[in-house]
């Protein structure tokens, strides 16, 4: 039986955590993301190498759902995170994150997805505000 795959946030990714959400930015592609609710809960658990099952077990005390449902939610989020390059497969190792403390009132299982924003991507190609004459900006292809 093979070891479950571990995943980790790449050290080059810029991300910041606020009480209400996590914001991550990919400056090379001009895309930024925000993660709230379940996604904001799960994402920091990949700061060190972790498996989907390990993260689900870590979060389980917080949610009003069974283990299988939490694992499915984390797996679905992980698929998005990998596709967007916000986490990457890494060699296994290290300890699984410890379960979080159980809150007085458990949360419904929700929000295990990320929001992607590409509305500023054109800033990388031309500066939409800054028109210029011949030989200068903009130089946008028709």
């Amino acid at each position: 039986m093979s070891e479950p795959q571990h995943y980790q946030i790449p050290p080059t990714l810029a991300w910041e955590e606020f009480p209400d959400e996590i914001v991550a930015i990919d400056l090379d592609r001009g895309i930024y993301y925000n993660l709230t609710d379940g996604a904001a809960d799960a994402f920091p658990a990949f700061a060190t190498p972790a498996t989907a099952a390990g993260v689900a077990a870590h979060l389980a005390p917080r949610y009003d759902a069974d283990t299988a449902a939490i694992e499915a939610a984390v797996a679905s989020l992980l698929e998005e995170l990998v596709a967007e390059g916000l986490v990457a497969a890494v060699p296994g190792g290290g300890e699984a994150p410890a379960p979080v403390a159980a809150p007085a009132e458990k949360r419904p299982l929700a929000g295990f997805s990320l929001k992607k924003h590409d509305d500023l991507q054109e800033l990388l190609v031309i500066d939409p505000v800054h028109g210029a004459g011949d030989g200068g900006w903009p130089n946008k292809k028709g």
Partner: protein
Amino acid sequence: MAPGSDAGPAPWLAADTERALSLARASFAAAAARAARHTVDVDFGGARLRLELAGDAARATFATALEAAPADGRAPDLTILAWDAAHGAPLAPPEPDREAPIQVGRHYATGGGEVDGHARRCVFWEPPWIYGYDLGERVAWFHCPDAGGMPAWSRSQPFLRLLHAWLRTRGRLVAHGAVIGRGGRGLLLTAPGGSGKSSLAIAGKLAGWDYLGDDYVAVAPPGEDGGPARAFGLYRVAKLEPTHLAARLPAAGAYALDAPREGEKVLLSLPLTPAPGGLPLAAVIVPRVAAASALRRIGGGEALRALAPSTLMQLPGDGARDFAALARVLRGLPAYHLDIGPRPAEALALLAPLLAVPEAGT
């Protein structure tokens, strides 16, 4: 990598940033020998900048937006040389590939090791301009084909990327936002273009509020002493769409520098409020134009999404570190979403209570 084909330096630039500075100095000296040379000192809250400008057009283009400070005998922390090819001193970068999209501010080469954790030398290629800096030599340079033909927007924010690179070594970040305030405290207004932040900042200035800029300001994260995040003014020339001037802020017309060229914004000369130590920030505001003015509290993450991407994508540098610093600026500040209705005074009235100084013990 071919020039203009992708993010990265043009080969000419990547070859030798030290030689680029040497060529720039020689080119500037040749221009300064042929044209009137102007020296302008600027003080950004203790960070001292000196402009050495070759030609009257260079002075008009590059110095108008900067608040001149009286000479006080202090050596500058940075000197920027600016000149143009119109005075017979061309500094020609390679021709761009016109078929490929050009990434603004992303064709640059660095070299010379580091100063305070930042690249010591950098050369930017932003056709038709070429510019760069050497932080070790405390010198920067900016060359253009014709200083008198620069687009209006560039006159309102000269040397933006050079100031960004330099001020980072002074613990400050250039941020895409406006700052207005009252009573010694300020509000950082941040949102993409078209959100109404410039119009609101100008309306505040006209209403007697403190004013530190309408589009780009410098910010410093809270100090280790627990002091608040602070804002510093950069540019005293604001930009406004002619239609907004006519419809919303006709009184601003008295501050117009000149008649705008077709398709360009009106440039307004609006003196910055003196704030030598910076203006302590009381809140961050994310505005948008709406049918009626309204204010509601939002989270810091939403404010960071409004501030950081447009700042960092236009001012490339050490993205992760700058992103973290912008987050530190916002962490201690309450954040609000502001709908700006057709009467700016109503929006300002909603903001005024945010600037009240909390009473001791509250």
